[in-house]
């Protein structure tokens, strides 16, 4: 999965960092609450648990971050996940393998 690809890349390229933003898809009933829990805790471990379909704790904060992400995604024309935005602003849709993504990130 993309998360594994990102982990591989940061091991290979110390000059690359990934900033992961939550974009709960419509039709995924629990996605919104899970996104809030993850953002409140700012926890990669929780995101990993979510990918493994584990139950997450309820959000422990009030946050508008998810609503703002949704609004931003709409402005950017993002309708699916995963979406990757490269340092130069190129937008990629869907999964990319390690080799492809490293090539696209470039130097």
């Amino acid at each position, binding site marked *: *999965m*993309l998360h594994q690809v*990102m982990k591989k890349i*940061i091991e290979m*390229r*110390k*000059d*690359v*960092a*990934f*900033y*992961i*933003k*939550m*974009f*709960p*898809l419509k*039709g*995924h*009933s*629990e*996605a919104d609450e*899970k*996104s809030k829990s*993850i*953002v409140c805790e*700012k*926890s*990669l471990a929780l*995101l990993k648990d*979510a*990918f493994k*379909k584990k139950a997450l704790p309820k959000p422990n904060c009030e946050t508008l*971050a998810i609503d*703002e*992400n949704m609004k*931003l*995604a709409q402005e*950017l024309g993002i*309708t*699916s*996940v*995963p*979406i*990757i*935005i*490269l*340092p*130069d*602003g*190129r*937008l990629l*849709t*869907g*999964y*990319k*393998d390690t080799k*492809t993504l490293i*090539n696209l*990130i470039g130097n």
Partner: protein
Amino acid sequence: MVLFSSRTVILSLLTLFSMLLWFPQPLHAAQGYGQGCSVFKPCGDGLSCHPLIQKCFHKPRLEGEPCMAGFVCAEGLTCEATSLECRAPGKVGDPCHATRPCGDGLSCQPGVQKCYHVPRQNGEPCCVGYECALGLQCDGMALICREPGKEGDPCHLTRQCGPGLKCAVGSNQCRPVKPDLVVKINMDCSSQSAKLGHTLSMLAYNLFLIFPSKHMGSNPRRAIEIPKWIKQNGSHYDVVIFSEAWLHPGTVASGMGLAGFCNHVYDKREMNGSGLAIYSKYPIEDFDFFNFGAYSAGADSLADKAVLYVRINKGGRRYHVFGTHTNAEVDQFETRVLQYGIIRNFIKSKVIAKDELVVIAGDLNEDRVHQTDKYETMLNEVWAEDIPLDTSGGQYSYDGKENILASSDDREALDHVLHVADPDISTTVILPESSCKYIKPKANYLDFINRDLSDHYAIGCTINWGSLTSIADSKIFTQERLIGPNKIHVTKIPLDDALLLGDQKARSRVIVFTNPD
């Protein structure tokens, strides 16, 4: 003669005893490793006297030294009951039994009582409970793990042939597959108003024309109704890929002809074939077939599951379409991974220009909704990316809650259209306006109104694409147009709420939008 009184004797003995107390050394020097020992000749430090042999050995005993109750072996060693010697865990080929276990990653093969790998490697013995490694098969006659047969190798029920081969009846030798394809390829039956340019519209559909099944009584009627539905609702598709089109292939082909698809390549072998068929409105310039051979598991291996390839020429542009149907069961993921490797190599074997679109379509049996890890592994294995799904058609292609022909309550997204995105094969890119959508073909038949036509739903896609390599020469696309609309001002994206993976000081920041559910 000197006489001693009893008092003198007693005093002398007491003196000697007290001297012994003052000088508590043994009467003999401590015995070394392997030297004889007894109560009066004790062993030195770190050794103990073995009662049966009366020699000194390490305490605890090391490998090859004698052992028994009270004289135990060092950690990691076992006291072998037959030899009463300490043994290290057996290596490959070493003898083994209840008190002489095998080392890590090995197990004791019943019968021959020797240690072999878990799972068994090529050439090692196998039997029920002692299975062969993935990609090998337990030859039921020799009870040895073997690689699938190569061309000319002997074959039988438990020694199947490798990809692209099949066990020939009579000679029982592995021979190249003759899939018995029905081919009609050189026509152009597209309408004048068909959308050319960089667009491919396609439908992939698992037809469930299968025997046996609870609904097989409806097979003949569905074989008629499915093409009719496509004629009424799918006239905009350029290409249609069917899987599980095992039964009534001629009926389906006739109907598809009437629906406007004048070119086809389909496997007419019915239940022992692949069940694959590809229909096109545009000329098919090339086609090929490659089966999974022995890389197929369970009931699926009774059929000849495979990849069917066509190269379509639509308005002067070539499209490479690989239709497939991989192994079905959830727990057969490892078999499917082998099949993905076969698909990948099959793609690689084709002559594909880098500015030509390559797609894989069909029932790939990875559930995008519930098995995301496996789904993404599949994408990685076939060098592909998915095309954004418009969920207005639902999220599932197999929906046991809704589809009347589905045999379980499961809801799964199993049917996919994938874009092969490996830059070594094709540098095409999918443009944002592309999308796929699950479609629910229904018809009135057999006294039912609005009845599902298969236990799967179809997936319909419109793929708008560009090519990075053709940009410089193309008047249709420019780098600006291809990438320009997608370019984002990254500095305007707030990152306060984002999770950081990597070093905060890293020079290159990549932003990822993801759904946690």
